[in-house]
């Protein structure tokens, strides 16, 4: 009888994508204290940003460099909506009165910000999505410049380059975990729907897709809008974590960081957002300890400015040369295991455990055989 592969086994899936991460999370949270908490929050926000970028850049094949711009819109709109009237009036001179009066709870504010951003992106997309490839990349980069210029100058809304501050810290760990899971779930459902499959078809071959009745313009536009919706959610959560925002925070640097997450993790897969975000969130924290200079094997390494940037860009180039598809490649293992009901219902079936034991033993046997062979070859004449 054909036994299923280990990676298809519900128990294995449950252990690797649910239990193990949950345990890691709890350990980091309890052992690390409040500093690690904010790093973890950042990680989940980055997952949202990277996954939403993957939808356009990797899955649909619209290569956008403008994610930071939409993140900025989400951050600003949600902050304006959650700040109290008094704070807005002291911080921003002559803000329109009707706007100053509005104060929404967190969730409606984030959703409103995301919807407004999505509509703005729809208008922008109508104009710019005619371009492709390199052209689109530069136009979207230009969009980052345009949005920053608007945020810098519309000072009766945004307080100019000084930015906004004093937002309440709504982005707690449970909130961002729920947001990240919801984002991944919605994007995953889109990915496996007819809509998502049309995106992939367009990416692979426009003409063939068009001949099957897939509308080039509307699919691209919708994909772009969905992506910006979640970029705005990520931005809004980010604003309510940092509690201070300024236009310069949503510039090239931020756009590249999100892009690096997306590429390192695996652009063509939503699952890639998770390893990508993990690398780009935790590695800089580790590197920060070294950037002030350190001693290795008795050799004093002096302080290096921007060590993080150098390491990240080298990692980036090496990834592209040796593993272009990123850590996970095309595999949707993480996300599909996470949201497939079978992962959970399978835990209550006896067959799961039998298969697991069998697959496990088979793996052990094959490893043992391989090791055996190696030692025998090693002992040969």
């Amino acid at each position, binding site marked *: 009888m054909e036994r299923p592969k280990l990676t298809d086994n519900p128990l294995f899936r449950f252990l690797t994508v649910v239990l193990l991460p949950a345990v890691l999370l709890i350990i980091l949270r309890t052992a690390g204290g409040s500093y690690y908490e904010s790093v973890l929050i950042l990680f989940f926000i980055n997952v949202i940003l990277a996954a939403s970028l993957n939808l356009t*850049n990797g899955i649909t*094949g619209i*290569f956008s*460099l403008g994610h930071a711009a939409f993140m900025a819109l989400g951050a600003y709109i949600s902050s304006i909506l959650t700040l109290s009237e008094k704070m807005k009036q002291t911080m921003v001179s002559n803000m329109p009165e009707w706007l100053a009066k509005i104060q929404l709870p967190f969730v409606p504010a984030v959703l409103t910000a995301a919807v407004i951003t999505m509509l703005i992106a729809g208008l922008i997309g109508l*104009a*710019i999505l*005619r*371009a*492709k*490839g*390199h*052209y689109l*990349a*530069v*136009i979207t*980069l*230009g*969009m980052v*410049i*345009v949005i920053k*210029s*608007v945020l*810098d*100058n519309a000072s009766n809304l945004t307080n100019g380059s000084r930015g906004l501050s004093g937002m309440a810290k709504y982005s707690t760990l449970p909130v961002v975990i729920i947001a990240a899971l919801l984002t991944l779930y919605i994007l995953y459902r889109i990915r496996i729907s007819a809509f998502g499959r049309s995106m992939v078809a367009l990416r692979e071959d426009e003409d063939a897709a068009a001949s099957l009745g897939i509308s080039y313009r509307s699919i691209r536009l919708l994909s772009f809008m969905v992506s910006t919706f979640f970029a705005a959610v990520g931005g809004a959560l980010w604003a309510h974590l940092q509690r201070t925002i300024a236009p310069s925070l949503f510039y*090239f640097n931020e756009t*590249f960081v999100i*892009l690096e997450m997306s*590429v390192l993790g695996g*652009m063509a897969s939503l699952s890639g957002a998770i390893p990508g975000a993990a690398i780009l969130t935790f590695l800089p924290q580790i590197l920060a300890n070294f950037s002030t200079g350190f001693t290795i094997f008795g050799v004093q390494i002096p302080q*290096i*400015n*921007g*060590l993080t*940037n*150098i390491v*990240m*860009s*080298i990692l*980036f*180039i090496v990834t*592209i*040369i040796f593993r*272009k598809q990123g850590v996970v490649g095309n595999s949707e293992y993480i996300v599909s295991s996470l949201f497939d009901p079978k992962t959970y219902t399978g835990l209550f079936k006896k067959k799961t455990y039998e298969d697991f034991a069998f697959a496990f033993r088979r793996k052990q046997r094959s490893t043992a055989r391989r090791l055996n062979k190696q030692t025998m070859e090693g002992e040969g004449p």
Partner: protein
Amino acid sequence: MEFFTAQLISAVKLGSIYALVAIGYSIVYSIMGMINFAHGELLMIATFSLWLLLSAGVPFAVAVVLAVIITAVFGILIERIAYRSIRNAGESTQIITSLAVSIFLEALCQAIFNSSSKALIIPDVFSQTFKVLGVTVSVIDVVTLACTAALTVAVVLFIRHTRVGKAMRAVADNQEAANLMGINKDRIITTAFVIGSVLAAVAGILYSGKYTSFSNDMGFMLGVKAFIAAVLGGLGSLTGAVAGGYIMALLEVFFSGYLPQGIGSYQTAFTFLVLILVLLIRPNGLFGSSARERS
């Protein structure tokens, strides 16, 4: 009227820099079909080399020549190390690689020289001023214009009338056919990078010579603007690159000078909106041919 002339002159200065950089983009694009986002960093490399050489006591003229040569070497190295292996990879790979190279060079420069802005001291001759039509012009402005004109003409003559130039046009037209005719593609691509790097080096030196202060992030924004200038004029067309450079500078300078108070500070936004408009009406740029698909 005086204000207008002053604006016009500053637009011409800026436009010359954009034009020089845009030609580099255009040449590399037409031959490799890729956009080198790290092109702007070549301006940074040229400026930092010149600065180092000058502080080491090398005479100015020698330092300029050496800085240009160093930049060209960097251009060749970038192509060899980073771009050769991805030449036939997809477009997004090419974009990502060149962005990564750009970030790397900037970060490396920051690590070595830190990110504070530095002063470039050029000989006094260049900062002397005189009056033309009631507007003050400095020698470096004239030098900028003269260099741009001379280099542009040189590049056009090179491409139109030399054997290598002919080979470059052949590769741009059809790589495979050119290969079959015995043209060494690698050498042509290297030549394109050398030309682009030399132009970028001159532009970088002129730019930081004009503003006398520079830092490790000088290249990227200039690079993006020059690229947009190249797109505006039509990628792959030399006339387009030059015209695009000047149009871009005119737009920028006149938007900031003439837009009413309050919206004048949105000049960057307006410049990009014009670009998007041009692309909507003429997808291949103002001087681009319609033969090549924009992808």
